[in-house]
């Protein structure tokens, strides 16, 4: 038996060389086809007869610079409202989901209430809910009515809470009943087994759908502008009306996408990790 460092055979060397050639060839081909497509698109778009007018109307850098601070100020409202509403909606959704999965006839009214809540607020358009909360409730002239931003945020929280409740309920019900049975047989009470065994698994299973709902909420938070506060899109609308140019909308759109990118990236990573974990061993 010869000991010593592994020496690849000529055949193996040939295989390695072939694979390297193929890799280089595919990278070059990808670069070439991307370049060809890029040039083609650039020529087609900038060569189109209406391009100058489109550029003036949608991509005016001086207007973008002039109105960027106003749109950023509006975006700050979006961000603050989003953080608060997301946390509250998650909490509300969790509570509702747990209430809906309570078993036993004595909890029937609680389950019914939770069911009515999820059915009605998933059906009601968010715009109507915001109008009712921000224009209807102050109209009652009750003592201590909060301002319209809080009321609008409450409308968004309650609507998205119902979506999140259903997603979490699906997660809870997807956890195999043997988990609960095993936990109970170990002596954990129902509450303890939910808290330590079922809910962690449920949230992990539901996290891709949950994060998707959160990303969607990020944009719907802008509907608060119906009630009066100026968010990023409303600031863009005001700027567009003042200048008769659509560039502010493009600026607001780009800012929203940039703002959403981290969350979308996290969603992808979490989804991948959850899938890998759940399918471990296969």
């Amino acid at each position: 038996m010869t000991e010593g460092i592994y020496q690849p055979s000529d055949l193996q060397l040939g295989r390695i060389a072939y694979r390297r050639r193929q890799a280089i060839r595919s990278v070059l081909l990808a670069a070439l086809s991307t370049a060809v497509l890029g040039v083609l698109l650039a020529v087609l778009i900038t060569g189109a007869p209406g391009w100058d007018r489109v550029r003036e109307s949608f991509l005016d850098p001086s207007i973008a610079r002039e109105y960027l601070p106003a749109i950023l100020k509006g975006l700050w409202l979006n961000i603050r409202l989003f953080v608060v509403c997301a946390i509250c909606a998650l909490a509300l959704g969790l509570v509702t989901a747990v209430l809906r999965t309570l078993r036993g006839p004595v909890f029937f009214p609680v389950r019914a209430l939770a069911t009515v809540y999820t059915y009605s607020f998933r059906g009601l358009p968010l715009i109507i809910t915001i109008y009712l909360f921000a224009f209807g409730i102050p109209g009652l002239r009750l003592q201590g009515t909060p301002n319209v931003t809080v009321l609008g945020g409450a409308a968004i929280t309650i609507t998205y809470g119902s979506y999140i409740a259903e997603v979490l309920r699906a997660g809870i019900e997807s956890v195999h009943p043997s988990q609960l049975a095993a936990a109970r047989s170990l002596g954990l009470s129902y509450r303890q087994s939910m808290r330590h065994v079922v809910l962690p698994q449920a949230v992990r299973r539901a996290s891709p759908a949950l994060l998707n709902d959160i990303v969607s909420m990020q944009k719907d938070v802008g509907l608060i502008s119906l009630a009066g506060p100026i968010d990023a899109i409303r600031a863009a609308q005001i700027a567009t009306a003042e200048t008769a140019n659509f560039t502010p909308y493009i600026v607001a759109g780009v800012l929203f996408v940039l703002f959403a990118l981290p969350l979308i990236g996290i969603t992808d990573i979490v989804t991948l990790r959850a899938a890998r974990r759940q399918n471990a061993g296969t």
Partner: protein
Amino acid sequence: MVSRNTFIAAGGAVLMLAAVTACAPADEGNDATPTASASTNSCPAGALQTKTAGKLTIGTDNPAYEPWFSDNKPSNGKGFESAVAYQVAQRLGYAEANVTWVSVTFNNAIAPGPKAFDFDINEFSITDDRKKAVDFSSPYYLVRQTVITTKGTKIASAKTIADLKTAKLGAQVGTTSYQAITDLIKPSTQPSVFNNNDDAKAALVNGTVDGIVVDLPTAFYMTAAELKDGVIVGQLPQVGVPEQFGLVLDKDSPLTGCVSTAVDQLRQDGTLAVLEKTWLAQTGGAPELT
């Protein structure tokens, strides 16, 4: 032998090329220089280059507010702007039966782009920025922005602009009323912006804003007929060029000259003054804010 994939690629390229040429802007052959010769009539009565030959299409918003229109039915000829529109149509040679109304939101009418109307009448103030996107006719009404509120709010007895600085004001988005707040009053709290005057009015009634800014005739109508205990705080001062309403037409529309001439005729023979007295009679005597 040409492979099937090459055919598919070539077909795709042809389709893309066809789509791009189809996206070319509309033929601009008819923006010829306007004929200025006195001998030919450039405004043939009833035969202008309208959207539909022989018919005049006028745009306005829905709902159409009082006292500019009546009962949200622009075609009934009641209300100042409805009356002015029909008078202009008559001078252009279009009888009442040949006038059709279309609904166009306020912001869409002054945005760049082709229009679904021949002209739009909806309390549009003439501004230089808007002129970049649309054509305006000669002005038909001199407008003042007015602050209104309800009895008992903290600005109900304000006399100067400085008194309004700490108030929460509101206005419709994209209007010169909103610009009056940000340019003239400059309050310390950000003003509330609403999609339309109905929402602004609801916010005022609820007390979520202290006051709203609208034009003078709307202020009179709202405080008299629509708001309970409505109060006119005062008219805002005219700064610079006086604000005037004009009819909105598509940019470089062939009708702009003719429509402007018609409005000028209405002013010169006193029709506009008569219509103002008929429909806007109660708009007098509002206090002025200094």
